[in-house]
């Protein structure tokens, strides 16, 4: 009994030693990320969690203030306004972006001589850096000399003062985001090309037209890609910053309709010097992103599952 036991034991310990060695090797390979993420992601997260419970002016050390920063948000009208603006932007732009991307992808998924050209045309706008696209669209949206209003004038419509008029700020932002739809199109085209051809054959035998094939075969088959893309879009929309901070900034101050969450967070941190409050806003944002992602995954899993039955 003792002999086999010892053998097992020693074998196990050799195995354990080998396993430990493997862990060591693995850790060595991933150490750059572990170190980098520790220093540039996890430590900052912990720090900002702590700061969010402090009063922390830019030039002085943080001072514990409990839940003050979190309480303050709900009585801060500017905070409530940026939350509203950001929510409205996400709620309108994400569905529209997705629908347009899906339609274009459905049309462009067929391989043909011209469709790679069309795909390139749709994709090129996504290359334009945000700041540059903000400049270009400011010019297009100019109420007097902008191309859009000039074209509208040709059909006798007097266009609005897009980025000045509070009612047109949201449409301006949405139009710009749809201009960048190429990102989504490319993803969906790639997903559509992976859909097995037999499924379409079967659908055709069932007498389905092109549109019904798209709805009943294509969409369910690429639903994981849609879900992933919608999550990515949501995370991005919640953080929208560069474009509106350039487009809606005027000599007489920021256009309140074009004031978004991350902009106000940035102003609190680096303009007003309320780093504690900014940190609390950042954690609120993180929680919302996590919550939305979980919700989308939950809803998405059911939808994706349902479609595949």
């Amino acid at each position, binding site marked *: 009994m003792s002999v086999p036991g010892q053998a097992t034991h020693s074998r196990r310990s050799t195995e354990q030693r080998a396993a430990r060695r*493997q862990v060591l090797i*693995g850790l060595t390979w991933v150490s750059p990320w572990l170190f980098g993420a520790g220093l540039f992601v996890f430590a*900052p997260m912990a720090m900002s969690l702590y*700061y969010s419970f402090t009063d922390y002016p830019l030039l002085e050390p943080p001072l514990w203030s409990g839940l003050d920063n979190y309480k303050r948000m709900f009585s801060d009208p500017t905070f409530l306004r940026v939350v509203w603006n950001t929510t409205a932007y996400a709620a309108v732009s994400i569905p529209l972006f997705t629908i347009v991307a899906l339609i274009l992808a459905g049309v462009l998924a067929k391989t043909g001589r011209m469709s790679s050209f069309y795909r390139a045309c*749709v994709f090129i706008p996504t290359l334009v850096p945000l700041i540059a696209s903000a*400049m*270009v669209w400011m010019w297009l949206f100019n109420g007097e000399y902008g191309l859009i209003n000039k074209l509208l004038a040709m059909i006798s419509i007097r266009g609005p003062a897009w980025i000045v008029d509070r009612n047109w700020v949201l449409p301006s932002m949405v139009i710009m985001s749809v201009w960048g739809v190429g990102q989504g199109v490319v993803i969906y085209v*790639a997903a559509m090309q992976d859909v097995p051809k037999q499924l379409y054959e079967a659908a055709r035998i069932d007498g389905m037209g092109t549109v019904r094939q798209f709805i009943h075969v294509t969409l369910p088959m690429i639903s994981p890609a849609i879900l992933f893309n919608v999550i990515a879009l949501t995370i991005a929309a919640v953080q929208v910053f560069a474009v509106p901070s350039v487009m809606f*900034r005027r000599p007489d101050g920021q256009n309140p309709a074009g004031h978004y969450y991350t902009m106000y967070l*940035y102003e609190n941190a680096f303009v007003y010097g309320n780093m504690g409050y900014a940190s609390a806003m950042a954690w609120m944002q993180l929680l919302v992103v996590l919550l939305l992602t979980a919700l989308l995954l939950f809803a998405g899993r059911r939808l994706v599952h349902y479609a595949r039955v």
Partner: protein
Amino acid sequence: MSNASPKPGARSRLKGVYFHIAMLLVSLVFLAPLVWMLSTSVKPEDQAASGEIHLLPTPPSSVFAQAADNYSAVWNDRTIRFPLYLRNTLIVAILGVVGMTLSSAVVAYGLSRVQWRGRGVVFFLVLATMMIPFPVLMVPLYIIFRELGWTGTLKPLWVPAWFGNAFNIFLLRQFFMTIPPQLDEAARLDGCSHWSIFWRIILPLAKPALAVVALFHFIYVWNDFVGPLIFLTDRDQFTLALGLQLYQSQSGNTPWNLLMAASALMISPLVVLFMLTQRTFVQSASTEGLK
């Protein structure tokens, strides 16, 4: 579909013509903003701000002279120094791309080609960090870089790239997983170390994926606005994104034709790169779909 039509070929050809007309229109809509940008950038100021729509300046023969005027005015501006900002952006981009590609590949190797307990946990952590919004890190990163004495230098913009990035690691790991394991088993029998397997077998096979990561990071650097905005103070260190914003906001004194010329200058390297590497580009964009 009806099969009563006597000439199905003609009909579908006609449908095809309609389709292409529609698609050409759609393409035009997508390209129009950039075309208009270029058009504005080769006009004199008074023609840029006029009520009519012309693609070329009047007289059209003045287009080259006017383009030269506008673009050289942007390039040679004394206070907003685009040549300098281009250099800074390139420094950040080159150092960042090299670091990002290398480090992400190393980490991805550890997450795909080495068997070890805890690998799943680390991979999950990597994926989880993809969801963290940058604003959560903004304030503490500023403080960390300040303690390191890096604010006011380009370091905060490229050093972190040397530690990999969740998305790129994920992308490379997925690719490394598709490489048959027999390859490194054979190499291991020949006495190769992990490092030489990585260096001699995996990296050469993964060139397309590495190109995607490099391209991604390059575009990211070209695009990045928040990072430079927070970490740079000295105007001599600005990147193109900040420079362009500065050019526009500078007491609001930049005419539209010059602003469009500056924007075109900033966009052009990316478009050229796109023309040259279209396949990699489209591939890189589609990998975001978690194929």
